[in-house]
Structure formats: C-alpha cells, structure tokens
C-alpha cells in the first residue's frame, strides 16, 4: 500500500505486487452513435446517450488490486460498479480492454481471452463472490451444506466425509451453527444467508473475494457483525477483496483504498480516509456530505 503515489489519485498506480489489474475496460449496452462519448459521462450527468439510447456502463476503467488489500468501489445506482464486478467475475464480457491476473509472481494472464469453459474453471478456483440477494448465490432447494459443498465438488472433491468436515469448518469460521448443516436456506435469516454465501465463496480458498452490496438490506446490528466477520477473515487469511457498495460507512470500515464511480467513469480514487476527509471531485463531495 505504501507504493501508492499520492499526487496521482486517479490512476492509482502500484507497480509491484499486484494480483489483478484492469486496463482501459469498456462496456456498453446498445447500438452506439458518433456522439455517444460527448453526450454521456459524469460531466453530462448521465450514462445513457440521449440520441441513440446506448447505456455506457463502464468507460475507460483502470484499477490495480494489490495482494491482500481491500479495495472499495462506491457510487450511486447505475454508476457501473456492478457491471465492473461482473466483468471481473467473468460473467459479462467487456467490449474492450484487459483484465490481467497474476498469482504469486507468476506471469500475468489476460482473463478476457478465456473461453467460457476456462472462465468457469477460473471462477471456481480463483474467485469467490457474495451477492446482495442470497437467491443469486445460493440454490434454495439444496441444503446449506450442499450449497457450500458445490464449490468443493466443482474442485473435484470426491470424498463425502472430507467434504462434510470442510463444510463444517467453514460454517464455524463464518459463525454459523454447524448443527444446521442440513437445513434449507429458506429457514435461515437474511444475515445468516449472507454468512452462508461467504462460507461458499471461501470454500475453494479463492485468491480474490468479490463482494457486491453484501450488507444492503440488513439491519444495522447484523450489518456490523457481517463487517466484523469480513475484517476477521481478511486478517486471518490475508485474502484480497473487492468491495462494491453505495454505503460509505461500509467502505470506510473495510477498505484501505477506494474508487468512486459515476456514470461509468472513475471520478476519483485514493486512500479511503483521504477521499472521505478531503474529496476533490464535486460528486464525491456531494456523496460525503450527504452521508450521515
């Protein structure tokens, strides 16, 4: 984190020790026209082109993720932060740009070149994701144990006893009652389901954990306990996290570094404290002043 160059707050460059690097990523939905780029963006205050109706979800997005760090992405609804996360999760194919992944000083791989089969393998082994809505991440017809085991089974675990042991271990780690391993998701509360999602995401020991608005819709005390849990996991496993949220409080508690997105563009980036104490971009100033 010390490699961070303070006077270059938009292009936050860390040259060494990065695990994930996003280079000039673009994603749009619609036909596009010649005036799209002039008519959209944070200065125009819109991401859809009034002439052709194209939505520009991500425009020239650059970021680097150092190993073991937590990076927050904040922005209002429709700012493109979830699309960015989905592209990193290899669920949405970008129009242009590269997503480089480098594990343990190996050579970097461009994840945008993977075919669907390779992308699925990469997702299963290197990424874990937690969604805002548990229905997206969990199969409501399988038991809690089955849901967590799915990741292990995909990673070719074929010993039932060992799968049970690992699942129980993960439940203890995420503060879930292990005796409820065979219960079905609808019998759990919202906060517990987020823990189940976290347990599932951690099952295959991923290098990067993607968190998409995980505490939205939970009450404040449950929210605080989930954040405590994530902080503890981050401390114990040194896991790299990408945290998407519209809540500055959540980002402040977990992320050392933060990126602010508006209308598909990164408008500001830097250390979280710095952004919250001394916001430079008018939108960030608005965001900080409107919080609390």
């Amino acid at each position: 984190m010390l490699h961070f160059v303070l006077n270059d707050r938009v292009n936050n460059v860390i040259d060494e020790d990065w695990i994930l690097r996003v280079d000039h990523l673009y994603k749009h939905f619609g036909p596009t026209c010649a005036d799209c780029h002039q008519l959209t963006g944070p200065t125009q205050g819109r991401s859809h082109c009034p002439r052709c109706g194209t939505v520009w979800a991500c425009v020239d997005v650059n970021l680097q993720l150092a190993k073991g760090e937590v990076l927050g992405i904040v922005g209002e609804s429709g700012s493109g932060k979830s699309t960015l996360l989905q592209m990193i999760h290899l669920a949405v194919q970008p129009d242009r740009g590269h997503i480089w992944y480098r594990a343990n000083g190996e050579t970097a791989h461009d994840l945008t070149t993977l075919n669907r089969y390779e992308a699925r393998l990469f997702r299963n082994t290197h990424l874990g994701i937690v969604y805002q809505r548990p229905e997206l991440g969990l199969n409501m017809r399988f038991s809690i144990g089955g849901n967590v085991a799915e990741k292990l089974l995909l990673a070719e675990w074929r010993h039932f006893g060992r799968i049970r042991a690992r699942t129980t271990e993960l439940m203890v780690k995420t503060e879930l009652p292990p005796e409820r391993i065979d219960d079905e998701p609808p019998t759990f509360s919202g906060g517990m389901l987020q823990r189940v999602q976290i347990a599932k995401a951690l099952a295959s020991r991923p290098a990067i954990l993607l968190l998409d608005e995980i505490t939205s819709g939970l009450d404040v005390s449950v929210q605080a306990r989930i954040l405590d849990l994530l902080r503890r996991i981050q401390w114990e496993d040194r896991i790299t996290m990408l945290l998407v949220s519209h809540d500055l409080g959540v980002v402040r508690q977990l992320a050392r570094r933060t990126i602010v997105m508006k209308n598909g563009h990164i408008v500001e980036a830097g250390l979280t404290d710095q952004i919250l104490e001394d916001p430079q971009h008018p939108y960030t100033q608005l965001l900080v002043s409107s919080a609390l």
Partner: protein
Amino acid sequence: MMVNESADQLYNFALLDEDAKREIRRSLLKAVALPGHLIPFASRDLPIARGWGTGGLQITLSIITPDDTLKVIDQGDDESVNAVNLRRLIHRTTGVATTTDTPAASLIQTRHRIPEEPLRADQILVLQVPMADPLRWVEPSLERAITMHGETDYGKMWVYLYESVVRAGDLRIASQYPVIVNHRYMMDTTPIPRWDVPKLHMAETLYLFGAGREKRIYAVPPHTPVEPLQFEDYPFRTEYRPGQRCARCGAENTFLTSHFVADANGGRWEMTCSDVAFCAKRQGEQRDR
C-alpha cells in the same frame, strides 16, 4: 430399398418412409461419434402413443434389415403387453424372425432391462428412454442444461448426489443413475436399474438410446468407459444382496423382482429373475438334466 416377402406389402419396409429412417440414422451416427451426448431428432408420429417406446421403436425401425432376428423386452419380460405389441408391429412391417432367446437375437429392443446373458459385438441393444437429460433433476431450463453439458458444468448434479447421501444415508437412486461417458458427457442410464449400469462399461455391444417424446437420441458405443457418479467413501453399488436367490431357477447372480404367488393359504411374495426368458431357459436346462 429393402423388401421382405413375408412383410405386409401395404407398408414401406419397417413402416417409416426412407427419408425418416435416413434422418434417424444420421442422428445415430452423431450419437455414436459423441458418446453420451444428446442428439436431437425429428421423432415422427407412430401408430403407438408417446411414452410407449416411440424413441426405441424409431431407432429399431430405422436400423433393422430383413436378415435380423428381433427380441423385444419390457420389464425384462418378452410376453408383457408392450413387448408383444411392439414385436407384432415390427414383425408385420418387416417380416423379420423374432425370438425370446438373447444369444439368438441380432437386434434387441428393451425397456427397463439389459438381458442377463452377456451380449456380443454383433448384437445391438436399443433402449426406450422416458427422460433423456440427467440434468433435468437440477436444471429445469433445457437451454441452460445444454450450456452446462457444453461446459462440463456438472457441479449441481454432484450436489444432487451429496443431498442423496445426506437424506438417505446412501446413494439411493433406483433407476436413472447418472454416469460419465467417455470421461466427458454426463448421461442418464434411464430406465435401467443400478444392476445393469456396470454392463455399459467397456461393453462389446453397441447401446442405442431413444427418447421419442423428448426427441433425443444418444449412444454408448462398444469399448467406451462408463463411470457411475460416486463418492470415495460412498461408492456406487448395485442392488445385489448377499444370499439372494431366484425362487424359480435358483440363480444367485441376477436382478430379482418380487411376484405375488397365490396358494391355498392366501399367497406369498416370491423373488424371481426379472429376465423371464433367461429364467425359463435355466429352468428348462434343469429339467433336462
């Protein structure tokens, strides 16, 4: 065009028109080339209802030749209503010889069972399939299931197996046991019992599966590895019970079904061979001795 003097001349040989047969044969070639993969086909109308073996029947009708000897089984029995009527239909439109003796048959159409007697390389077994896709249990959307097959995304099916162990304490799947064919595609062994699943592995015989209602054909060619899904500590097991014995022929290594036998005291349940022709053959041999 094939002609047989003893066939009913009102119909084309083997009932179906030649274009229909050619289309099914093309699908069969694809199915053999991609073992275990579901191949769509047109599935014509037939004079029997969907669900009564139209898939198997269309395969049989499109590959049968005048020199074939045919055997038809339903629930292991050559004399059940379904088997008798299918055999009569095929015989009437082709004039081929029929038999109940497994080694004497060159083409066997079956539902629920693979015969007990070992099959040879010059025989073909055609299975009538009710449900073609193993992912049906975990993925209701056909389109998504096709993608999952394409990406070998079988995690959900493994969770289904995991849940089976959690709920029943063992891999309690009576029929439709999922297998991996040729280390690639997951295939439903529908409708055969677990007993018959090992017979598919590295077999001498060509196995063809036809699902008429679902309009799918698939195949297990000879010498193809077929591995049942299992856990290291919960291995795949057949229905075999130590000490089991057929009440009629005394065979100790066959798939048994229970029959009710009425007598003066009201009756009792008896375990007998499911493969009726095989059982009768053994009983005949015992009488001759």
